[in-house]
């Protein structure tokens, strides 16, 4: 894992962060403790979402909420420097 992150870092100056990270197989938002991806949890986190929509639908796909930055992202997105593994 450390080797992969170092590899990604070394490419940072050459190509955009997310592109390089994606190529190096770096951590994804899905594995971050700040990522809310379960549909029931998303509906609880965003009151009103279920009035005319649903987190259980296909349209949401793998969209989730990053509680660290308060932004929407997907499970596939490459993790930011503030990534914290769900195990820790």
């Amino acid at each position, binding site marked *: 894992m450390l080797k992969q992150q170092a590899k990604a870092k070394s490419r940072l100056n050459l190509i955009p962060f997310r592109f390089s990270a994606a190529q190096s197989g770096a951590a*994804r938002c899905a594995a971050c403790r700040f990522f809310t991806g379960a549909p029931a949890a998303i509906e609880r986190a965003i009151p*009103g979402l279920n*009035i*005319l929509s649903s987190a*259980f*639908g296909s*349209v949401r796909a793998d969209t989730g909420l990053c509680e660290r930055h308060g932004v929407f992202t997907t*499970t596939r997105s490459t993790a930011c420097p503030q990534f914290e593994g769900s195990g820790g």
Partner: protein
Amino acid sequence: MTNVGSLDAGREAVKPERRGWKELYLKEDWWAVWLGLALMVFAILSFQAGSSNIVKALAINPGGLKWNSLGQLADHFAQNAQLYLCQFLFWLVLFGATTAIMGVKLKEFVPAFIFLYVGSLIMFAIAGWANAAQFNLEAPLVALILGLIIANVFRLPAWMDSAFRVEYYIKTGIVLLGATFPITLVLTAGPVAIVQATIISLVTCLVIYFVGTRIFGLEKPLAAVMGVGGAVCGVSASMAIAASVNAKKDHLYTSITLVVGWALIMILVLPFVSRALGLPAGVAGAWIGTSEFADAAGFAAATTYGKMVGNEDVAIKSFTLMKVIGRDLWIGIWSVVFAAIATFVWEKGQSGRLPDAREIWWRFPKFVIGFFAASILMSAFTSGFNAPDFNTVVRPNVIAPLVSLRTWTFIFCFLSIGLTTRFRDLHIVGWKAFWTFSIGVAANVVLGYVLSVIVFGDYWAGIH
């Protein structure tokens, strides 16, 4: 920025959500497909086995009773108490088991669904009053308004939302709708609906986006989230785009408030304006389809107007063509387009997410597949009957029960809209966002009227 309650919720979601075959039983779109098709096949097989009475019994409702006294209504329930009990258990098992598989807590779902079923029965009973039409007591309107009153006066606990699944019920209803929708109509009317939806989707999205960013100076992600929400399918579209442009939580809150507010206003206004303008049911259905954002809200408005003019079937058909077949398909395309814009234009390739064309499929509203499948299967089945046989045998034994089952899912949905709309949960939005979205709504409604009534008016009026 971080809220403790939602962080706790987030800890349940530490496992990555994987796409693939699991979607077939973890997404409500697919469950709507399985349930809708299973009910349709069950109705056909029962008919062929000569036992259509089972399906008819499950589809019972007091909506067509035309009762004049409460005694008459009480007699109906007394005589059919066992059927209603069976029907309740039937819906409870279908929706309870499937939502449990998707992750909803059964211990929350069951009591809330009992409340929803009893409430829906009352809505049907009100709509079945002989003088209901005289007082505009159309079932969708009554369900919506009573639901709003209950949710905002009596403060139902939030866990009851487990059974108030607006989207799941409407998607199941749409698949069942496919069973009464001739595939020839889809094929002949589809291209016109797609052309009209394309014009509306592009114009509305661009109006909101450019008014928001150029005139009111809103953040680009917020303008994109509102633009696609107004152009395609409301909050669902906003949520899909939010990930493409890394929108903030507040951006989605803003979109939710604006979409819900305007959608409710249009449910209450569009049917009455359409009636005042004397629009044919097909034309009004198309206009509602181009003006409403969410499927559930649009079906409520189209059904209300159809009931007002005694032509519910046509209003629903043209609405479905316009909204479900036309506009909803745009969501994946907009997701990819805005992901590309965010990556290559806004952030100059530094931090935007890579656009991925596969999102068009990932975000495709899969219940539409069920709608098409139901339409094709039922068209194939009914092609073996001549017109008199269809009208005297197939319609009362297969089609009518399926229509009644669809009506049940619609009433569950309309009542759920009211019951989940707690105004205290909606965030206050800034006036810039309000005016941006409202200008988009105005453009949407006016252009929708021009296209539905003037440009394609003859076409929509000919839907039957």
